[in-house]
């Protein structure tokens, strides 16, 4: 499959790539001075230098960096000027400390509008590691060991900005391992009647550490079977199968399409304009939909075929009218390409039984309940195990039942 790069064109797709780290600094509550800056990189970003102004006016936000107990332990970000400062303030209570508590915070500075979600787990982990170091060995309390925090933040800034990961040895037994992961928007819910299609070769990604259920499910993703069928073949709980799909969806490994049937109806979406202006998609389309080894048709032919998919023709009629069989085109892939790119939409058939006619209608009461405008044919056929034809036979003779196409 080669659709991966362009697959998201028609969808709302954003990735939270790690933002640039502007500065890192470490603060503690000093018994006499209050919130105090101990270490910073680069120098002068927080503490004023003789001939430069700092990025951040520390005193104006110190109440959020070294806060009262209620905010401690939470991930706190505060904006000041054009910057955002993020960290997890930690308070450790113990009578060995002069005020019976130790408060510290290792903070990150970003541009104000940076998307910092990829740093959130990192900030939490650092707070956790420093806390356990302190509890095990008074790491921060003793000035000798505390000074190594400077080395930590120096390497943090350097490595996270350059490599998105770092491994910092702290002492003989401890090291800080961090990695930034991009954040993606949460996936849309997955339904039993949807068909997953791979955007990457999952077999090359799988390793033995993968979840067993995911591995079982992945083996049956072929762009043809719907989620329920995959669950059955893989002998996996339906709910778990859907969750696996959502997981794969989150990482962009699959996208969901509708069930391919010759009775389906498709229509172009306004997004069709994007492909006529994008030559890359056009060449991609040709290589994706042409049958292996065959001579490709020009894009203009493909395009006129897409335009002839209208709300009044089923796929079967369309194939006959346009003699698609003679064009070296894989019909399934032709439709899949349009749907995944977002310029083609399936027009679903929703059977509706008006509330007024519900009592007199002699259908199976369970099926009747599904005719409320919330379920289309694919949905009902998948959950009730009908074929499209069977369902048509059942419903079409009942005059009260109306069909809404959407």
């Amino acid at each position, binding site marked *: 499959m080669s659709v991966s790069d362009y697959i998201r064109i*028609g*969808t709302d797709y*954003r990735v*939270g790539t790690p933002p640039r780290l502007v500065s890192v600094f470490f603060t503690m509550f000093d018994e006499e001075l209050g919130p105090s800056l101990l270490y910073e990189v680069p120098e002068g970003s927080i503490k004023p230098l003789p001939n430069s102004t700092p990025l951040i*006016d520390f005193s*104006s*936000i110190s*109440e*959020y960096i070294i806060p*009262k*107990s*209620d905010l*401690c*332990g*939470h991930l706190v*970000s*505060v*904006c*000041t000027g054009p910057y*955002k400062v993020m960290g997890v303030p*930690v308070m*450790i*209570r*113990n*009578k060995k400390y002069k005020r019976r508590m130790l408060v510290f915070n290792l903070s990150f500075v970003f541009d104000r*509008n940076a*998307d910092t*979600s990829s740093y959130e787990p990192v900030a*939490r982990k650092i707070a*956790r590691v420093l806390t356990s170091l302190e509890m095990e060995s008074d790491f921060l309390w003793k000035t000798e060991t505390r000074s190594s925090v400077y080395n930590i933040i120096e390497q943090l800034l350097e490595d996270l900005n350059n490599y998105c990961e770092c491994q910092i040895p702290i002492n003989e037994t401890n090291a800080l391992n961090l990695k930034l992961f991009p*954040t*993606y928007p*949460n996936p849309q819910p997955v339904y039993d009647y949807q068909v997953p299609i791979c955007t990457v070769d999952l077999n090359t990604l799988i390793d033995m550490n993968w979840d067993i259920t995911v591995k079982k499910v992945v083996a049956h993703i072929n762009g043809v079977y719907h989620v329920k069928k995959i669950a059955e073949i893989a002998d996996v709980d339906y709910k778990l199968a859907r969750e696996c799909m959502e997981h794969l969806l989150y990482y962009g490994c699959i996208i*969901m399409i509708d069930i391919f049937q010759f009775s389906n109806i498709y229509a*172009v979406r*306004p997004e*069709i304009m994007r492909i*006529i202006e994008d*030559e890359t998609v*056009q*060449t991609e389309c*040709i290589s994706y939909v042409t049958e292996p080894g065959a001579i490709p048709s*020009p894009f*203009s032919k493909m*395009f*006129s075929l897409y335009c002839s998919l*209208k*709300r*009044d023709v089923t796929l079967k009629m369309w194939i006959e009218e346009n003699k698609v069989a003679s064009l070296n085109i894989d019909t399934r892939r032709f439709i899949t390409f349009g*749907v995944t790119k*977002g310029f083609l939409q399936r027009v679903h058939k929703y059977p*509706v039984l008006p*509330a007024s006619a519900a009592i007199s209608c002699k259908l199976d009461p369970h099926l009747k309940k599904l005719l409320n*405008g*919330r379920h289309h044919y694919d949905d009902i056929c998948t959950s009730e195990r009908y074929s499209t034809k069977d369902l048509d036979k059942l419903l079409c003779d009942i005059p009260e039942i*109306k*069909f*809404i*196409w*959407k």
Partner: protein
Amino acid sequence: MHDAGHLKMTSLCAILLVTKSSGGHGRFVFNYPKDPQRKHEIIDYTTGDEESDAETINENMPGDDADKRSIFSRIESEADPIPSRKRVDVASRNDDGDEILLGFKKSYLADFLLPRSNSIRDFQLTVDEMTFLGQPISFTKASRDIDLREDKKKDDDENVMDSQDIDQSVGTKLPPTTKPANRLSHFHLVFVLEPPELELSQQVDKMFKHVIAKITAALYYEQERCDYVRQQSDLIMQLNAARLDKSPDELMQLTLKKSTLARTIADVYDAISTDSTAHVLVNDYIDISLQIPSFSPFNQADNRQDLDEYTQFPVITPHKTLLLLEDPQEILKAMPLDANPTLVQLIQIITPTQRLGDLISLLDCSLAQIYRIVAHLIYWRKAKLIDVITTKNIYVTSPSADLRYLNALAADFSQHCPKLDLITLLSELNTPAPSKLEDIIPITFKEQKTIYFDAIAYLLRKGLIVQLHAYILVMVPPYIHMGKQGSHDHSKIISTPISSPEQASEAERNWLNSITAGKPEETRSLFDRLIQYFNGHHYLEEILLQENISRKDLRLVTDRFEALNALYILWHYGTGY
């Protein structure tokens, strides 16, 4: 599968008001709604035992640490039978300090939502999943960074000297000790958001620009003019103090009844959290309208660089019309008394079967003026731009139509259009194929087609249907470009839409000239005029009306392209529906 639907523009979960009197502590005044609905509950557990030797990590780590944390808190609660402990923060002495809101004590919220520094203009604080936004207002000239005692002294001094103080000018010899506590030194109207991943900064910008800056400025003005925020805060606090026998619901109702500020906050919350518009009259004096504007349900998906801000905006033309989204009487009621009389008149007379161009004579005003009014109504979500409803139009179910409550919708529909049935109509519009309205209207109804027009207007208003258009596109055959691009193997198979006459390449121009060669001058000029519309962005009726030509004229041109296999008709509902 791409039913994007109407994504909410904001994820506002509460509005809070905190204030501070000079020399006093921050106080939490009001929150709306009463119990903000949160997506992520912050797990609140008390801090470590001071007396016990066991150290406590006061950390809130999600995921793998959840179990660990619960063990810690269990150890804690076993070791420490007294749940409440001494706190360092003085604010907890406040009488309203016990209630927990959004995972924090109200007194603590008041404390950290009033930043000590006066230099913060746009306040933005994120605690885990929750973001607090606002513009804290400070009325003291003295810096807040200095010691509190000094501050108090300064305030006292100011009071003695400050002749502009309203109260002071009335009651001349009030004991100075009561004064500082009464004067409002800070207030902060805080908006609490809980946006989904990756949407924070976008939502923050919109909230500041469209909502926070406006409402805060109005409150600031009213506070300066007549001490409004302080008086209202005092009123709300008094109601709170006397709540004894009242349930939280009753207290909220009473507060909303008695306090105009509480009501304003509630109105703003109700509108912004449901993605609609708020029209509030702050202190019965400042009229403001608030909303987070949106023009297209799809605009959140468009992060393409080539689209500028106005791409999503509907294009107003004289042959379009306006569909009011609410009852005209309701719209008029919500408007200020000094509203533009032409605007009022337009709302009274507009119908979806009448072109905007026809209003010029009826309203006796210029088209430009009508455009401005139309744009205004669309911006404030009172109306949307549609094509004039005619029997030739084709409508299909909107891809974002919400059919979940179809029976309830059908009941509502029958109130508006008693002679028709919603489900039948929706079904007829598309079965067996999308049909022109005239083909749906039964012969017996032909005389009363307005019944159908009303029904269509209803369906458009509810977003249940969209109009289907035939967009016209001419693509330049690949061989035309061959000469220009050399034998690039792509050029054999890819196609490009026709360029506007100014941008056309020489090869393209030659191709067009060859099509019209030998034709009469009239036909050639028609070609030249129409070619600009054939880039796929214009639909048939639009071209006819814009150029004032007949279908036959248009066919004359399109037929030529069709014969060359260069014509494509794209049936869809456009991007701006």
